[in-house]
């Protein structure tokens, strides 16, 4: 089975964020970066499918040069090769613009299966996989926890709301967006990290893919959220804060 995994590099979860001077995005210079966690689950699923059914796992990622480190991480975990779509203006493109880049890079590979995370941790659009399926002309399913390959088809477990699930059968090739938690994520081994250096990492310039970058939807401005409630912050040492909180819960909120 030839499996493509589309991954995104995102700011590390705990990295402090500062709004950039133009208020269009955050200051990126001192940020730490990581693989988008739902994409890590997509990669894990791909690696497990390969272990069961043989084949090849190819990682695709779009972004500037720094994305290379996340691609190397995926190769170290076990992906066979990678395609880096070098794109300096990823943030200026909307979900359709980004999916078009990925689709153009994926098409010549003719994969059996395309996996990606259900959403990114930075923009949280949750659309790339679904649009990708549409652009590739393939059936899709989202929020998938388990993938089972039958003869020429797939049986997948889809998460619904409030603790419900559903099984879906679909033909291959197909696109799936993976929910987190279906598998346990593996770490890269030292051997894996060593091997990754010898694996093929092909770069393609976004401009070469002939994709229209004009967005239908634009992010105009970012800002700190307005508070919905006025929070009483209880200061002092841990002990003092704890005592103050218990007092408030007893006498003010009356919930103890």
């Amino acid at each position: 089975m030839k499996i493509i995994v589309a991954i995104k590099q995102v700011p590390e979860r705990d990295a402090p964020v500062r709004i950039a001077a133009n208020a269009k995005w955050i200051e990126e210079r001192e940020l730490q970066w990581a693989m988008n966690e739902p994409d890590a689950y997509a990669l894990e699923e791909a690696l497990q499918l390969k272990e069961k059914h043989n084949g090849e796992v190819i990682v695709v990622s779009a972004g500037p040069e720094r994305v290379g480190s996340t691609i190397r991480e995926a190769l170290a975990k076990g992906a066979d090769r990678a395609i880096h779509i070098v794109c300096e203006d990823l943030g200026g493109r909307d979900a359709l613009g980004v999916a078009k880049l990925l689709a153009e890079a994926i098409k010549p590979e003719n994969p059996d299966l395309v996996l990606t995370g259900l959403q990114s941790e930075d923009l949280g659009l949750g659309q790339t996989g679904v649009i990708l399926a549409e652009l590739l002309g393939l059936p899709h399913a989202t929020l998938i926890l388990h993938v089972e390959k039958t003869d020429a088809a797939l049986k997948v477990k889809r998460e619904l709301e409030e603790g419900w699930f559903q099984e879906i059968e679909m033909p291959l090739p197909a696109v799936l967006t993976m929910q987190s938690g279906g598998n346990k994520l593996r770490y890269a081994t030292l051997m894996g990290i060593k091997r990754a250096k010898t694996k093929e990492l092909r770069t393609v310039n976004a401009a070469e893919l002939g994709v229209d970058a004009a967005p239908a939807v634009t992010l105009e401005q970012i800002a700190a959220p307005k508070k919905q409630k006025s929070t009483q912050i209880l200061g002092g040492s841990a002990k003092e804060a704890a005592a103050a909180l218990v007092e408030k819960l007893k006498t003010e909120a009356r919930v103890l």
Partner: protein
Amino acid sequence: MNVLLVLEESGGHIKRVSWEALAAAQRLAPAEDITAVVMGAQTEALAREASAKPVGKVIRVEHPLLAQYTPDGFSLALQQLIQNQNATKWVVFPHTYQVRDYAPALACRMGQVLIGDVIGIEDGPFFTRQLLQGRLNGSYRHSGNGTCFVSVQSGAFRAPESDASATPAPITIFTPMIEPAQIRTKPGEPFRGSAQTVDLGSAQRIVSVGRGIKDAENIPMVQELAAALGAELAASRPICDNGWLPMERQVGSSGQTVAPKLYLAVGISGAIQHLVGMKGSQCIVAINKDPDAPIFEVADYGIVGDLFEVVPALTEAVKAAKA
């Protein structure tokens, strides 16, 4: 400026979040320009329910192949409906798992991009949605021509009341052309996960733990606090993903929705998927080391600090108060 409002049903009734989407639609156009859309194989009762709301008209998009939701069936049917309508400027959806599954493909088919998970609409219109797990808000604009697709986060808009005395909106039927071969996926019947033995929904007090706890072996510390408070223990998604607590203790869009008297969030940053499951709680307390964590936006009381110091101190203080 015509609006198509796509309603979603569950168990034969329109979901409440669909009416919240109606409130969002009202920000874009007056009621008479809003067309409510119900979809399925038998939609008469749903249409009647919709016609009692402040909308201009109701369209039943009906076809035997829409009996069960599939992304192919719903995209195809709505694409045909939009093309059949006169100049639809907006298509508004509730932001449900189902909508996330097909609306991006539908928008793409029409050369558009869904503005998803919207929590506010400002004059312009500018659509507010959350970024970086709720740490920032982004203001989005539809820059192209043509139809704009918008989905609305649950709990962000207040659903308008039905007016029993008003004349019901007129109802028409639209029959899309769908061939069985066009539906490529075969959905099974929904089923419950593991047997639910924990009913967080009826708990008076909940102590909920998140990523900040760092390791499974630290969970007992939070368990002790829960025991001291007489509270149920719950968690955000990553804790259950890691198998540190069972899935049935998960609060949020994919877990349980709770509204206890006291909700104490320990080391939970407060991504929107978690907040939708608990923000109706009467009193919310957050303990987190990051003063900018979005959980503080909904908290009544907060302690900014190291949970490994605060939680044991709080357990002691609760015990002392009860003694």
